[in-house]
């Protein structure tokens, strides 16, 4: 409910104004739209003043200038128009645009409104410059521009240098003006420091000093540019963004993020596990070491088997203490000058801590991306956003800009068509038909997924039946090959099925495709995990099953990379060559962002699954990602064009990160927990060979600490009551759910407040004209200006 505006104004008498100092209310200063109105009305007043005054019923007093135009719309007096012209919502845009770009050294006449941008900026740190700069000033004796400037300078002097610079950077003034303000507001002491030295000797010294500093600076810049040249991605990313836009760029940025995550995972492992074990290699086992053929790079077996690469190499003893098993309670004297290093414990803790750090980083970046890309009420207003935000200013190539124009045209037409479709109601039969077709397609897709899962399961059982002989290691590649072929072929089938579907919204279409592909990949991985942890462990009882699982995952990673290369080659290069030769349109294939991103997520899931069994797998993944970047970039620039479907680039990185977190990382974490807590480690290799579960190393250490003495008794206490007690975990989950519920309610409340405020604004603006007629009444001219700024609502609607 809008309240009637209660503010009062000091209205200067109309005839008295003229002849004073040049005022912003003069013709060329007042708002253009009102300028025309003023001219028209002064003409009407001259022509039909008497007749119109008789129309006004019971109007008191003389000099009443409220008139009604011929259409019956309220016509305002010049004074009213002046007041309306001075309202913040009418003058802010113009004052900024007119004055800041034509600031005082440009125009002869000093305008009063030029003071507006200077003051409010400094004092309040509100994020809304329109409200900050509100200044209802109608007093004709206002200070001049120079005085306002001095006020601003004085206020800037009160801030610290960093704050002052921050404030100046955000001001929409030209650089020359900012420099002037900065110079004036620098403290005298600082200025004195910069003064040139007196006497010939000093000037020579200072010149020498400047020369030295400049030379050093040039050297620093050369080094910096050299460093920039070393990061080869910066220029490539800029080129991709300029040629293809933000949506394709988001794929490459995601790739970069994955490299960072893998590096984060690799560093602790290198430092605490791989490096230490490489420094203290265990005794080589009996039998000759297999010779290195080239096949190891594909299979991961052969001469890679007994190296730091796999779980089986790591010792289960305390390094640097070459006597007895420490967990048996035997006393050992450490080697002179050495530090005992409990390998099983280090292995378990490092993997656990690395996963924990990855989890925290992933959740934090996901929350950050969500915060940046979703706003309350952002689902409405899509037309405005398309008009103002759809042109990507980064694009610099002519062909890309032509494509952007096409995209925008398509998008606008689709938007308007969607709107019309929403207006028109569909018949019940049509809707039923639509639902039936959708249901059928989804059933087919899910059926395909189940079929693939069954096929993978059957094939893995087959591989289990006949074990692979030592010389025929190529047969080990069969299972990864089958899975990769399924992952390659089934998405094309999905694309064909999706063509049958009725699609209203192209964005929804893409998300549905992503969802289906994701389900396929996750179900396949789930079947494989069951196969490894459930069946393989049983089949390889007297061998090192962890090594085998690690090698399997290595094979999957490598074959996945090879198939991605093949896909790029055939999907992009050959397609382009064919389409150029055969078809006349010379249309290049589109860069399919969704499919490529899902493949990256799949590869990363494989890495996370395999870290426990192959600590160097993140390094393999990093090499693979770096190679993939170069290959994809080259293929993109040579063969592809940007996707025709417009993507909302900001939402995409959020979607990618959340897909990386939820099915992918969560699944890997569950697999890790199962492997650590449930499965019995093999008894002849690895750091946990004599324990019942891998976690047993941790509990054994806690028992050891308990026996050690009362000083460290808090650690076993923590272990017993917080880690092993499930109540604590329930408590944490309940707390998390409460926080989520609270946030949901806050967002809901904010939405409601926004709706109410919008209603209030439109009510206020609808009630304005009757108020305007009262303002023209000169008999009620003893109205005083309100000194403090009115609430923001009035600032918008008045």
């Amino acid at each position, binding site marked *: 409910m809008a309240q009637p505006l209660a503010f009062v104004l000091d209205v200067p008498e109309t005839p008295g104004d003229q002849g004073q100092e040049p005022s912003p209310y003069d013709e060329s200063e007042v708002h253009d739209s009102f300028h025309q109105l003023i001219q028209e009305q002064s003409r009407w007043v001259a022509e039909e003043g008497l007749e119109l005054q008789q129309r006004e019923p019971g109007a008191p007093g003389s000099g009443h200038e409220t008139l009604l135009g011929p259409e019956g719309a309220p016509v305002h007096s010049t004074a009213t128009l002046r007041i309306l012209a001075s309202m913040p919502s009418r003058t802010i845009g113009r004052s900024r645009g007119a004055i800041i770009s034509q600031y005082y050294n440009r125009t002869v006449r000093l305008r009063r409104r030029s003071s507006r941008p200077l003051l409010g900026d400094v004092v309040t740190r509100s994020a809304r410059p329109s*409200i900050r700069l509100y200044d209802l000033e109608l007093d004709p004796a206002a200070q001049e521009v120079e005085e306002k400037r001095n006020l601003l300078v004085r206020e800037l002097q009160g801030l610290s240098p960093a704050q002052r610079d921050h404030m100046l950077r*955000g001001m929409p003034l030209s650089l020359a003006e900012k420099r002037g303000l900065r110079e004036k507001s620098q403290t005298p002491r600082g200025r004195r420091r910069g003064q040139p030295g007196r006497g010939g000797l000093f000037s020579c010294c200072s010149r020498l000093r400047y020369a030295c500093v*400049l030379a050093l600076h040039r050297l620093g810049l050369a080094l910096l540019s050299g460093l920039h040249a070393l990061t080869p991605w910066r220029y490539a990313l800029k080129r991709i963004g300029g040629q293809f836009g933000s949506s394709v760029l988001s794929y490459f940025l995601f790739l970069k993020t994955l490299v960072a995550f893998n590096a984060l995972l690799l560093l602790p492992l290198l430092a605490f596990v791989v490096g230490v074990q490489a420094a203290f290699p265990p005794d080589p086992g009996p039998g000759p070491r297999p010779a290195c053929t080239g096949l190891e790079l594909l299979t991961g077996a052969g001469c890679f088997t007994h190296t730091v690469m796999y779980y089986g190499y790591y010792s289960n003893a305390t390094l640097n203490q070459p006597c007895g098993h420490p967990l048996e309670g035997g006393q050992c004297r450490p080697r002179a000058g050495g530090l005992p290093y409990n390998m099983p414990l280090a292995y378990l803790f490092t993997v656990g801590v690395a996963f924990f750090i990855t989890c925290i980083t992933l959740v934090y970046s996901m929350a950050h991306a969500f915060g940046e890309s979703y706003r309350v009420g952002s689902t409405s207003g899509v*037309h*405005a956003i398309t*008009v103002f935000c759809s042109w990507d200013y980064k694009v610099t190539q002519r062909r890309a800009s032509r494509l952007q124009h096409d995209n925008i045209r398509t998008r606008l037409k689709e938007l308007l068509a969607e709107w019309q479709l929403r207006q028109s109601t569909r018949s019940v039969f049509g809707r039923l038909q639509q639902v039936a077709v959708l249901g059928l397609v989804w059933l087919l897709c899910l059926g395909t997924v189940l079929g693939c899962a069954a096929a993978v399961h059957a094939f893995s059982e087959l591989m289990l039946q006949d074990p692979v002989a030592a010389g025929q290691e190529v047969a080990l590649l069969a299972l990864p090959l089958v899975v990769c072929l399924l992952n390659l072929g089934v998405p094309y089938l999905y694309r064909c099925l999706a063509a049958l579907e009725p699609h209203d919204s192209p964005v929804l279409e893409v998300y549905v495709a992503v969802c289906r592909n994701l389900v396929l990949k996750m179900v396949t991985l789930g079947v494989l995990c069951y196969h490894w942890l459930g069946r393989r462990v049983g089949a390889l009882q007297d061998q090192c099953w962890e090594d085998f699982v690690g090698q399997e995952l290595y094979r999957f990673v490598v074959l996945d990379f090879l198939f991605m290369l093949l896909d790029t080659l055939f999907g992009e290069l050959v397609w382009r060559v064919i389409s150029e030769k055969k078809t006349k349109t010379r249309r290049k294939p589109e860069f399919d962002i969704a499919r490529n991103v899902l493949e990256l997520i799949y590869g990363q899931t494989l890495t996370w699954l395999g870290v426990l069994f192959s600590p160097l797998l993140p390094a393999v993944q990093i090499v693979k990602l770096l190679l993939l970047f170069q290959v994809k970039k080259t293929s993109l620039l040579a063969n592809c064009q940007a996707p025709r479907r417009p993507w909302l680039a900001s939402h995409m990185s959020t979607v990618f990160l959340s897909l990386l977190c939820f099915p992918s990382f969560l699944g890997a974490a569950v697999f890790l927990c199962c492997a650590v807590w449930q499965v019995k480690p093999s008894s002849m290799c690895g750091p946990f060979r004599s324990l019942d579960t891998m976690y047993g190393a941790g509990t054994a250490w806690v028992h050891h600490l308990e026996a050690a003495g009362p000083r460290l008794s808090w650690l076993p206490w923590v272990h017993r009551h917080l880690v092993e007690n499930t109540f604590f975990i329930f408590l944490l989950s309940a707390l998390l759910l409460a926080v989520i519920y609270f946030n949901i309610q806050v967002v809901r409340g904010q939405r409601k407040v926004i709706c109410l405020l919008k209603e209030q604004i439109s009510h206020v603006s609808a009630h304005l004209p009757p108020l305007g007629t009262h303002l023209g009444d000169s008999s009620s001219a003893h109205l005083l200006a309100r000194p403090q700024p009115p609430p923001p609502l009035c600032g918008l609607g008045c």
Partner: protein
Amino acid sequence: MGQCLRYQMHWEDLEEYQALTFLTRNEILCIHDTFLKLCPPGKYYKEATLTMDQVSSLPALRVNPFRDRICRVFSHNDVFSFEDVLGMASVFSEQACPSLKIEYAFRIYDFNENGFIDEEDLQRIALRLLNTDDVSEDLLMDLTKHVLSESDLDNDNMLSFSEFEHAMAKSPDFMNSFRIHFWGC
């Protein structure tokens, strides 16, 4: 003074520019290089000016449909000094704050410079975006109507700065799309 030489900028000037703009040192020096290549020989870089045509034909702005408005908003007296170019690059850089970008976006989109984005401005924006004269009047009218119904809160058929700011603050795409890299290095 003399020929336009590389690294002629003084240390203090560089520090000042870095403090007053959102650009890094490397970026400022790259823009300086680009500026020197275009400015007439024999002039000190602080006194040289570029015409609007020269700036419009920079690789970063060449294909931009709003390049004439950008040049108009950032130039003074229809020419660009070095500091004008820096100011422009600062507003379009990645580190610029949203309020500054929204402010200048409003000025760029206000074609008739009356302090508001009214229907005429919206239609001109739409025509520039579509880059074709073969657009039906209905499409333009429809689009203008939709934009105003979504963003015009006080029902005056124009977007004031506050309404524009509110609409852009809701959209995270704005910051992403309102970025230009001016430097070639």
